[in-house]
C-alpha cells in the first residue's frame, strides 16, 4: 500500500480544459472515493494515475516516487475497468492469470496465486468459462480478481458498478469494502453515485462540473458539514435558503432568511464569517422534525402547513409551506400528517449549515 499525490495537475483534451492545476493527496491504505457528476474529469484523474494518460503539467507521486513519466505497464497500479475490460478470447482463469503471465512468473506460482484469488472473489467452478457466458456480477469479480492478483500498491476503480442493478451493486460494494479492510491496499474509486460513495469511502473528494475539488473529507463530514452549495446538493437532498448574518458570537449566528429568523451553530473549522455577509443556509430534510404541537429543545421553530406528500418507503417526503411562503422539503418517518395540516417545523442549530453565496 502506498499513498498517491497529485501535484498541480493540468490536462486538456484539444481546446477543452479538463483539469486545471489540481492537487490531491490520497492516503495510503484507505478507501478513497472521487465523487462527481459525469464529465467532471474524475475519469481523467484515474487514467492519469493509471498511466493511461499523461498530464500536460504537474506531477504524480506514488509514495515518494515520481511516476509521472512511467508508462502504464511499469506502474504497480492496476485498474478495475467497467465490464468491457475483460479479454473475450481468454477463460476466467486466463483472464486472471494474464498479468502474471506477461510478467513472466513461473507456472506454479501463477497457478497458486490465481487459484487463491479465485477463492477470494468467489469464482470457484467458473475457471474455464469465457466472459461472454458470465453474469454482470461474475464479470465484475473477474475484473476485480484480475487486478488484485497483481498485488498492486494502488487499485483503481473506474465506475465499475455502473452497469449492475441496485441490489447486486450493494452486495459487490460490501465485498469490495471487506476486501479493502482485509488487504489494506489503497483503493481509489470513482463514481457519480453518492450512495456508493457514502457507503464505502474512508474519504470522499467531491468534484464539481469544472473539474475542481470542492471538498475532501470523511463521508459523514461531507454529508453533515458540506463546504459549498454544490457539495450540499450533490451529496443528498437539501433545503438551501438565502439569508444574511444579523448577529454573530463564538458559537451561534443569527440569520435573517427567506423562511424567517434562524440560528446556526458556528463551526470553528469553517470559514470566518462576518456580520452582514450574504449566505446560504443548508438544512438536510431528514434533520427536520414535524409536529402538531410545539416541541421544546430545538433552536429553530417555524410554522407552516403541509403542501404535498410523496410516499417513499422508509419515510414520507413532505413539502411544507412555511408561513413566510418558501417551501421546505422534510423527510419524516411519522406518516400521519395530511395535506393542509398546520404543523410546527423544528430543527437544531447545528443542523443549519452556513454556506458562502
Amino acid at each position, binding site marked *: 500500500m502506498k499513498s498517491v499525490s497529485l501535484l498541480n495537475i493540468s490536462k486538456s483534451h484539444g481546446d477543452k480544459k479538463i483539469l486545471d492545476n489540481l492537487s490531491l493527496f490520497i492516503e495510503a491504505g484507505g478507501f478513497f472515493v472521487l465523487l462527481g457528476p459525469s464529465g467532471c474529469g474524475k475519469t481523467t484523474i484515474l487514467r492519469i494515475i493509471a498511466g493511461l494518460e499523461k498530464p500536460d503539467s504537474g506531477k504524480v507521486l506514488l509514495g515518494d516516487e515520481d511516476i509521472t513519466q512511467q508508462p502504464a*505497464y511499469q506502474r504497480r497500479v492496476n485498474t478495475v475497468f*467497467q465490464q*468491457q475490460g*475483460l479479454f473475450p*478470447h*481468454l477463460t476466467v482463469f486466463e483472464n486472471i492469470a*494474464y498479468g502474471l503471465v*506477461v510478467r513472466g512468473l513461473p507456472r506454479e506460482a501463477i497457478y497458486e496465486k490465481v487459484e487463491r484469488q479465485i477463492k477470494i472473489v468467489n469464482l470457484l467452478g467458473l475457471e474455464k468459462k*469465457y466472459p461472454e457466458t458470465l453474469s454482470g456480477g461474475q464479470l465484475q469479480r473477474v475484473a476485480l480478481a484480475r487486478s488484485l492478483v497483481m498485488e498492486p500498491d494502488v487499485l483503481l476503480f473506474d465506475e465499475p458498478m455502473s452497469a449492475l442493478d441496485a441490489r447486486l451493486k450493494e452486495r459487490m460494494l460490501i465485498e469490495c469494502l471487506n476486501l479493502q479492510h482485509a488487504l489494506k491496499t489503497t483503493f481509489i474509486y470513482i463514481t457519480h453515485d453518492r450512495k456508493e460513495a457514502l457507503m464505502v469511502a474512508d474519504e470522499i473528494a467531491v468534484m464539481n462540473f469544472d473539474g475542481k475539488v470542492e471538498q475532501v473529507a470523511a463521508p459523514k463530514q461531507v454529508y453533515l458539514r458540506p463546504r459549498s452549495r454544490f457539495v450540499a446538493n450533490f451529496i443528498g437532498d437539501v433545503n438551501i435558503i438565502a439569508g444574511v448574518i444579523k448577529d454573530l458570537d463564538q458559537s451561534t449566528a443569527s440569520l435573517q432568511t427567506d423562511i424567517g429568523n434562524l440560528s446556526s451553530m458556528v463551526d470553528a473549522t469553517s470559514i470566518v464569517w462576518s456580520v452582514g455577509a450574504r449566505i446560504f443556509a443548508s438544512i438536510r430534510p431528514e434533520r427536520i422534525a414535524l409536529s402538531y404541537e410545539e416541541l421544546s429543545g430545538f433552536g429553530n421553530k417555524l410554522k407552516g402547513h403541509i403542501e404535498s406528500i410523496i410516499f417513499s418507503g422508509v419515510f414520507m417526503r413532505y413539502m411544507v409551506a412555511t408561513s413566510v411562503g418558501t417551501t421546505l422539503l422534510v423527510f419524516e418517518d411519522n406518516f400521519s400528517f395530511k395535506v393542509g395540516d398546520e404543523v410546527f417545523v423544528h430543527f437544531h442549530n447545528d443542523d443549519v449549515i452556513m454556506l458562502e453565496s
Partner: protein
Amino acid sequence: MVQYVVYLVKKSFKQEFGFVLAMPAVIWQICFLLLPALVLFWRSLFTIDSWGVTLANYVSCTGATYAAAIYNSLVLAYLTALACLLFCLPLALVINFHIKRELRTAVLLFLMMPSWTNFIIRIYSWFFLLRNDGMLFRILQGLGLLNAGSSLLANQVVTIVVMVYCYFPYMLLPIYNCISNINPRILEASGDLGASSWQTFWRVILPLSIKGIGSGWLVVTLVSFGEFAVPELIGGGKYAYWGNLVVNNFLLLSDYNAGSAVIFFGILVILASLLLIYAALKLLLLVLSHFVTIPQKLLRLNFAD
C-alpha cells in the same frame, strides 16, 4: 421423391421462411457449380480415346512436368498468402489504431478502388509500368538505381508484388473486420496489467484476429493457386502453373477429360496442403504450450468457429 421435395418445401414454409429465401442461391449453386463440377468429374474418369472408366488421367497428373507445374502453383499460392498477411496485418492495425474514425472507410475504399478495374487491365498496367521503356523503369534508371542491362520484369519478387497487389483485399478485409471489433478498453487493460505493446500484440490482438487471418489465408491461397496470368505476363512466363495445364488441356489440346482430371487433382492438392498446414500449426502450438502459456482458445484453434 417428388412428394418428399414438395413435403420439404411445405414444411419449410410452415417452419421458417429462410429456406425459401435461400432457394435462388441454392438453385444457382446447384446449376452452375455442382452440376458442371459433377460433369467434369465424370469426364475426368475417361480418356479421350476409350470408353472404359480409368484413373489414367489422374496418373498422368503425377508426371514430372505436371507435378512441377502444380508445385509452382503451390509455392506461388503460399508465398502470395504469406506476403499478403505480412502486408495486411500491419496495414489493418495502422488503419484501425492510427487513422481517425471518420477517415477509415475512405482509406479502405481508396485501397479497394483498383479492384473495380478489370483484372487483366490491372496486370497490363503493371506490365507497362515495369517494362524496359516503362515509367518506373525509367525513373529508377534516371536515379541511377538500375543498370542498362537489367530488367524489372521476369523475376519472382515482382511476381509476388503484383500478386499481392491483386489479392490483398481478400486478406485485408477479414483481418480489419476482426481488429476493428476489438474493444480499445481491453488493450488498455492489457497495458494496465503490465503487458508491453508487443505482448499485447501477441496475446490479445493476434489471437483476436486469428479468424480473420485464417479466412483471409484460405481465400488468398485458393484464388492465387489458380493464377497464371500474373506469372505469365509479369514473371516472364518461364514456369508453367496449374492454371496453364488447365488452359492447355481445354483450349489447345481440346482434351476436356484430361483437363478435368487436372482440375480435380489440383483442388485435391491445395486442400490437402491446407489441412496439413492446419494440423502442423496445431501440433506446433501444442508443443509450444509446454514452454509458454498459450490461451486455451488457440490450442483448440478452429478458423471456422
